[in-house]
C-alpha cells in the first residue's frame, strides 16, 4: 500500500490518464475545499498558536464564547424570520410572473424580462442608498418590512428567470392533455406544470433563502441597529476580535442552514437547472 505513496510508482501503476485525473482532483479539492475544512478545524481549536499546523488543544471554548454573546441568539431568530418571509413573498410575486413570461407571447415581454436584469447590473449599494432616502420618507428604516424589501431586490432576477426557464421546458402538449381530460386550468397548473418545473423553482427558492441569510450590506444600511441578522452580527464580532476562531465558529453557524437545504434539495441541484436562471428567453 505504501508503495503507492511514491508518485512515480503510482504513475506507472494507474497510467498517465488516471494519474493526471488524480492530480486534477487533488488540486480541485485543495483549492475549493481545504479552506472550508481548515476553518472547520479552527472552530474547534482552543489553542492555535504559530507555528503549529494542528491545534494544541481541541474543544468548544470558542463556541461557548460565541453563544455567550447576547446578540447571537436574537440575530439567528431575526435571520430566519427575514429569510422565510423574503422567500415566501418573492414566490408570491415572482412565480406567476415567471409563468406568464414562459407561456405567453405579448408586446413588452422582453422589456419585462430585462427589467429583472437591472437588479444585477446596477451596483447594489447605489440602489440601497437611494432606496434608503425613500424608506426614511415612509418610515421603513429599521423595520422588518424594509429589510425584507432589500432582500427581495437581490433575489428577484433568479426568482423570475429560473422558474421561467423551468416552465418553458414543460411541454405544452402535456398541459393540453390534462385540459382535454377535463382538468381546470388551475388544477392543470398544480398537478402537471408545477411538479415538472419543480427543479427550477426549488433552486430559485434555495437561492432566495440563502441570499437572504447571507445579505449583510443592505441590512446594515437599512436595518439601522435595530435589525441585526447573523451576517451583520458576524461583521461586528469578526472585525472587533483578534482570535480567528470566533470568525470560524460564526462562519460554521452561517453555513449550517445552506448545508441542510442543499442536502434536502440535492436531487434538484444540477447545472441545467441552475444555468436557466442566467438566460433570457
Amino acid at each position: 500500500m505504501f508503495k503507492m505513496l511514491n508518485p512515480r510508482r503510482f504513475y506507472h501503476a494507474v497510467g498517465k490518464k488516471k494519474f493526471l485525473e488524480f492530480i486534477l482532483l487533488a488540486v480541485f479539492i485543495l483549492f475549493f475545499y481545504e479552506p472550508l475544512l481548515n476553518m472547520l478545524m479552527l472552530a474547534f481549536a482552543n489553542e492555535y498558536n504559530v507555528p503549529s499546523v494542528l491545534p494544541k488543544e481541541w474543544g468548544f471554548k470558542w463556541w461557548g464564547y460565541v453563544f455567550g454573546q447576547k446578540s447571537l441568539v436574537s440575530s439567528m431568530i431575526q435571520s430566519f424570520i427575514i429569510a422565510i418571509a423574503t422567500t415566501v413573498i418573492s414566490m408570491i410575486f415572482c412565480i406567476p410572473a415567471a409563468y406568464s413570461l414562459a407561456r405567453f407571447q405579448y408586446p413588452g415581454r422582453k422589456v419585462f424580462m430585462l427589467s429583472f436584469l437591472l437588479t444585477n447590473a446596477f451596483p447594489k449599494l447605489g440602489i440601497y442608498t437611494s432606496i434608503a432616502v425613500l424608506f426614511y420618507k415612509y418610515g421603513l428604516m429599521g423595520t422588518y418590512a424594509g429589510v425584507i424589501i432589500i432582500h427581495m431586490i437581490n433575489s428577484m432576477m433568479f426568482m423570475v428567470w429560473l422558474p421561467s426557464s423551468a416552465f418553458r421546458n414543460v411541454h405544452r402538449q402535456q398541459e393540453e392533455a390534462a385540459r382535454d381530460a377535463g382538468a381546470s386550468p388551475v388544477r392543470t397548473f398544480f398537478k402537471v406544470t408545477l411538479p415538472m418545473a419543480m427543479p427550477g423553482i426549488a433552486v430559485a427558492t434555495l437561492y432566495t433563502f440563502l441570499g437572504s441569510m447571507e445579505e449583510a450590506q443592505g441590512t446594515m444600511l437599512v436595518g439601522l441597529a435595530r435589525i441585526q441578522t447573523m451576517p451583520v452580527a458576524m461583521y461586528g464580532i469578526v472585525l472587533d476580535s483578534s482570535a480567528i476562531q470566533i470568525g470560524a465558529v460564526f462562519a460554521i453557524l452561517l453555513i449550517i442552514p445552506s448545508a441542510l437545504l442543499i442536502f434536502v434539495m440535492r436531487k434538484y441541484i444540477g447545472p441545467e437547472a441552475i444555468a436557466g436562471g442566467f438566460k433570457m428567453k
Partner: protein
Amino acid sequence: MKNKTKGLLAAYGMVLPAFLVVMLTVAYPIVSAVIQSFQDEDTGAFTTANYTYFFTETAQRNNLLYTLFVVIVTVVIAIVLAYLLALYLRFVKSGISRAIGMLYLLPRFVPTMCAVYAMITIIRDSGLINRIGLLFGLDIKLGLMYHASGIIVMNMWFNIPFATMMIAAGLGAIPDSIIEASRDSGAGRWKTFTSMILPLSMKDVVVASTFVFMSNVGSFTTPYLMGGNSPKMLGIALYDQFNKYLSYNRSAALSVIMFLICSVSAAVYIYTNLKEKDWEK
C-alpha cells in the same frame, strides 16, 4: 378572439405585480440616483463635478483602473479554466469526473463571507500554507492579503464553479451525434473542437463572462475583508463615499459610473440572448 384577450389579460395580470415591485424598488431608486449624481452637494444646482471628480483625482482614477484590471483578469482566467473543466466534465466519463461534477456545484451556495474568511485562514501570513512551510523550514509569505492577487484568487473560488456550471450546461446540450458525425467525416479532435464544440457553446461563454464581469465590478465582501487600502476596488470606494464622507451625490455618481461599466457587458449579453434562433422559439 374573446379567449385570446382573456389570455392576454391573465398574462399581464401575472407579470405586472413583480414588474411593479422592480420598478418601485429598483428602477425608481436608480433614476433618483442618476438625478442626484448631477446635483451639487450644497445648492442642488446642475453640475458634472461629481463625475469629473472620479476621473481627475489620482486616487479615484487609480481605483477605477485597478478595478477594471482585477475584473478583467478575473474574467479571463476564470473563463479559460472553467471552459477546460467543463470540457473535462462533459467528455471524460470516470469516477473522478463524476465526483468533481458533484463537488463543484457546492461553492455557489457557501455564504460569501464564510468563503472569504476560510480562504484568509489559509493564505494570511500566519495561515496554513505558511505553517506547513515552516515544518519544512521554509518561511513562505504569499503576500496575497491586501493585494490584487489575493482578490483574484478569491474571485477564482467563486467564479470558476459558476462559469463551469454555465458552460457545462451548454456543452451538455450538444448531442453526442453531432460530435460523432464530425469525427466520422474525418475531422481531428482539434478541428472538431474549433468547428463544432466552440461555436455551439459560445453563447454560454458570453453569458458566463457577463455575469462574472458584472458581479465583480461591484464586489464588496471580498475586497472589504482581503483588499488593501490603496488602490481600492470601486465597491469599497463607493462604501467610503457614502459611509465615511457622507457625500451622497458623489456616491450616486460613482454608482452610475459602475452601472455604465456593467452596461457594456450587459449590452453584449442582451445582444447574444436576443438573437433567438428560429428553432429555439
